[in-house]
């Protein structure tokens, strides 16, 4: 089975600091990997490498399929109502409104459709970013601290969304400094790699 995402012998240098080197991983459809470790271990850098936003100092990154990314920035226009801000990304991803409807239902955000993004709380914004990821239909999910600011109910919905994505043949690379309770999850301790 060919991997959706494959990193071979990857090294990452930020500034003049070597974060990690000779790191390899592969994610096949249905697989998920939890990048764990303390702050500054290079979890976010690895996510950005996988997304193609950073170039590896050594090694190769291969992606077979589209990517959906969550990082610390929500990338939603603050002045727009939530639904319209999400619809922009739906148009960019060329998916129809029903995909956004379903994703909003999955993250229980329908009641906030008309609320401007600027008024949302941190956790609500993370849920909105998750809606963008779900609605995009991309097979590879790169989630950098997706649960930050989320309450227990929202975390449960996130875990359910990840499970549903894997059942549909998607792959998930998840960076988090705490356990989310995703079942059947491979782990990579970035603290040990560095």
């Amino acid at each position: 089975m060919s991997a959706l995402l494959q990193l071979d012998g990857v090294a990452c240098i930020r500034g003049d600091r070597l974060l990690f080197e000779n790191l390899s991983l592969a994610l096949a459809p249905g697989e998920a990997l939890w990048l764990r470790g303390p702050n500054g271990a290079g979890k976010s850098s690895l996510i950005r490498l996988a997304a193609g936003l950073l170039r590896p100092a050594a090694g190769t990154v291969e992606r077979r399929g589209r990517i959906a990314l969550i990082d610390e920035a929500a990338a939603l226009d603050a002045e727009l109502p939530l639904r319209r801000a999400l619809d922009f990304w739906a148009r960019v991803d060329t998916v129809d409104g029903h995909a956004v409807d379903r994703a909003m239902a999955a993250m229980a955000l329908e009641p906030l459709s008309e609320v401007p993004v600027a008024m949302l709380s941190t956790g609500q914004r993370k849920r909105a970013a998750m809606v963008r990821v779900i609605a995009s239909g991309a097979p590879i999910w790169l989630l950098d601290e997706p649960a930050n600011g989320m309450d227990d109910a929202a975390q449960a919905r996130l875990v359910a969304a990840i499970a549903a994505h894997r059942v549909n043949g998607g792959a998930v690379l998840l960076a988090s400094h705490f356990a989310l309770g995703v079942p059947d999850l491979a782990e990579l301790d970035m603290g040990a790699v560095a």
Partner: protein
Amino acid sequence: MTTLIALFWRDLRRAWGRGALWLPVLFFLLVATAFPFAVGPDAPLLRRAGGGMVWVAALLAALLPIDRLVRPDRDAGVIDQLAVRGIADEVVAAVKILAHAIAFGLPLMIALFPAAALLAQDAARVELLAVGIAIAVPALASLAVLSAALTAGLKSGSAIGGLLVLPLAVPLLIFGAGMLDPSGRGAIKLLAATSLLLTMIGPFAAGAAMRGLRE
């Protein structure tokens, strides 16, 4: 294509939202109103100097919103999200240039007529100004997006941004204002050539600058 149209409308909406549509217009008219007070009501002098003033005001109007062109998108992660979707930074820059050209160019062309009247320009000179500025608008937009991309990573970027592109904008000013001179008949071709060159360079240079923001 749908993606690029969505991007274009978003940029235009953000440029014109909350009354920002009138910003270049007001700025432009403000300069045209203030200038006669500064040089005095000497109509021949005003006519001679006013054309050049229109060009300077047009350049500054283009540079007015540079801190809103790239930096907010970079801070909000929008540029990263577009890159993740495989959209080249050069394409994003090109769309931004097109949107900015329309966002400030269209109101500017409209404001040109009252501004020219305030500066005692006659019909023939108004025509030359309108044609010249219409030719230069894509280049001005290109320079604005370029300086916005170059300074998006800096704290007080917009002040430096203006200085950064000023040397590149000088040929536009020379040839544009040169069109108004009765002896400057070839100026329009030089203006068009300069505008074309700057417009072509813009997306690549701005795209490279946006990619550099990620490192």
